[in-house]
């Protein structure tokens, strides 16, 4: 059997964050693969919502984005932003929001808007779209991204979507939901301290050294004395991922 890839550990870790019966707003890519894996294993009654207005789709071909008709296939409801982001997310019935990030800082604040080049020139990216809405309103927020020093700075270059700005509590800031709970990277899983709201190391993926993670993280991070290992995907999870969920390696490759 082929060696387990970091992407497979990531989506399995993402899937384990989901409970059966939960409602999840998800973007395409690894977050969606994690949700489908959860639905195919321990959480068959997971509800997947796409901001564009799609509920519980059952695609048979791999979509390239939310605007791809492939992701509309065999949905049980087609609506729009007002329904998904308004009558579900803003309404408070979305348990989990899965996000990607250009940068995320030690307080879980996310940047998807712009980076400053060394020359001082700003470079714009995708902006918020539903990202700020999900980060502001979902019950829990889970971020999946690559582990690079520049992507995990002490403070984001632009605070697009709030985690715990200034290390303050969500409630004091007027935000709904519990905010970011996990950052799942290709090296480790991070959590957030309930008191300081700072990112902490929860587990290292098998084979990854603590020093590697510390060097590739832009902020200082609490680490437990003995760092647990992130569980590997089970053989059944690997089979599902490789044979059924993403056989063409569109996301896992």
């Amino acid at each position, binding site marked *: 059997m082929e060696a387990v890839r970091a992407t497979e550990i990531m989506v399995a870790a993402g899937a384990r964050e989901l409970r059966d019966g939960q409602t999840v707003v998800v973007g*395409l890519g690894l977050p969606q693969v994690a949700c489908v894996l959860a639905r195919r294993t321990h959480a068959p009654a997971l509800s997947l919502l*796409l*901001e*564009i*207005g*799609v509920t519980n789709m059952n695609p*048979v*071909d791999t979509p*390239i*984005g*939310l*605007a*791809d*008709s*492939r992701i*509309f*296939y065999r949905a049980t409801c*087609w*609506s*729009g*932003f*007002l329904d998904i*982001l*308004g009558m579900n*997310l*803003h309404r408070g019935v979305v348990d989990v929001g899965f996000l990607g990030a250009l940068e995320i800082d030690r307080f879980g604040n996310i940047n*998807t*808007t712009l980076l400053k080049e060394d020359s001082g*020139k*700003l*470079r*714009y*990216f*995708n*902006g*918020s*779209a*539903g*990202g*700020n*809405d999900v980060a*502001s*309103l979902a019950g829990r927020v889970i971020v999946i991204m690559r582990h690079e020093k520049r992507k995990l700075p002490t403070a984001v270059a*632009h*605070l*697009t*979507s*709030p985690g715990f*700005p200034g290390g303050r509590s969500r409630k004091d*800031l*007027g*935000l*709904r939901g519990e905010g970011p709970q996990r950052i799942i990277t290709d090296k480790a899983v991070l959590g957030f301290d309930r008191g300081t709201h700072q990112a902490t190391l929860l587990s290292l993926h098998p084979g990854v050294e603590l020093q590697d993670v510390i060097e590739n993280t832009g902020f200082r991070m609490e680490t437990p004395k003995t760092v647990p290992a992130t569980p590997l995907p089970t053989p059944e999870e690997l089979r599902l991922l490789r044979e059924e969920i993403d056989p063409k390696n569109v996301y896992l490759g």
Partner: protein
Amino acid sequence: MPDKVKTVVDAVRGIPDGSHIALGGFAVARNVIAVAHELIRQQKKNLTLSQCVVGMDTDLLVGAGCVSRLIIGGGSLDRFGPVHCINRAREDGTVESHDYTSLSICFRYLAGALGISFIPIKSLIASEVLDRLEHGPAAADVRRMKCPFTDEDYILMKALNPDVSLVHVQVADREGNCQIEGPRWENEEQAKSARRIIVVTEELVPTEYIQRSPERTVIPAHRVEAVIHQPFGAYPTAVFGCYDFDDAHLKLYVEHVKRPDRVKQYLDTFVLGTKNHWDYLEKAGGLKRMEEIKAERVLGY
């Protein structure tokens, strides 16, 4: 009811420079390409464009220099890459960009559609998105407020009422009753918030067809000013149930627009160098290519 079918040339003639236009596209799906091209051919200037999640339609208009202001929630061309023209215009400051979020733009349209001049939201709070709106050119459009009933913190936003809303639909009758297949993103609120609605339809159907499933009418005739009948009018973006996006053409587009010096070349070839949408479709591959991307009956793509 009157026949509202018009040519895209006539419909676009009625849109003055400086108009605020709401565009119905989302990334690479149901973009109002036929109208965007004609707006470029007629060299419209100083447009304000609004959209929840931008698409190729907005990127084209910004790239062609028609736009002076954007009111948007963000966006990209999905896996085809970023919206290069839009991002560059924000970097250069050649376009004034009011950057919101998907839901906050949708709520602003909803307020406009309901005729309420403001609407509260819990998004934006404690973000730099809000800071930039409050301390930038959108300062007059957002306020902070506590709910008088619950004492919760809210951001109040001003309603959006575009001058014209442009929406691409699969099916409309000659009076303007429109039905959309697949998810509708912000199209209903966006259209109904606007002073004028112009739709582009893949197919013109008799009113009797509309009457068979009136629950699917997203925009009713009495709100619609003009119906443009243009098959493949959203090409190279996808129209669910009609055709898929053309990945080859989208790659070609991105290859051009990612380099500022090649934007003009794309526009010269496919927009300014074409007489009309049929001519553009011919240049983009014509009948054979359109048949290749045509949707399969069951899958819808």
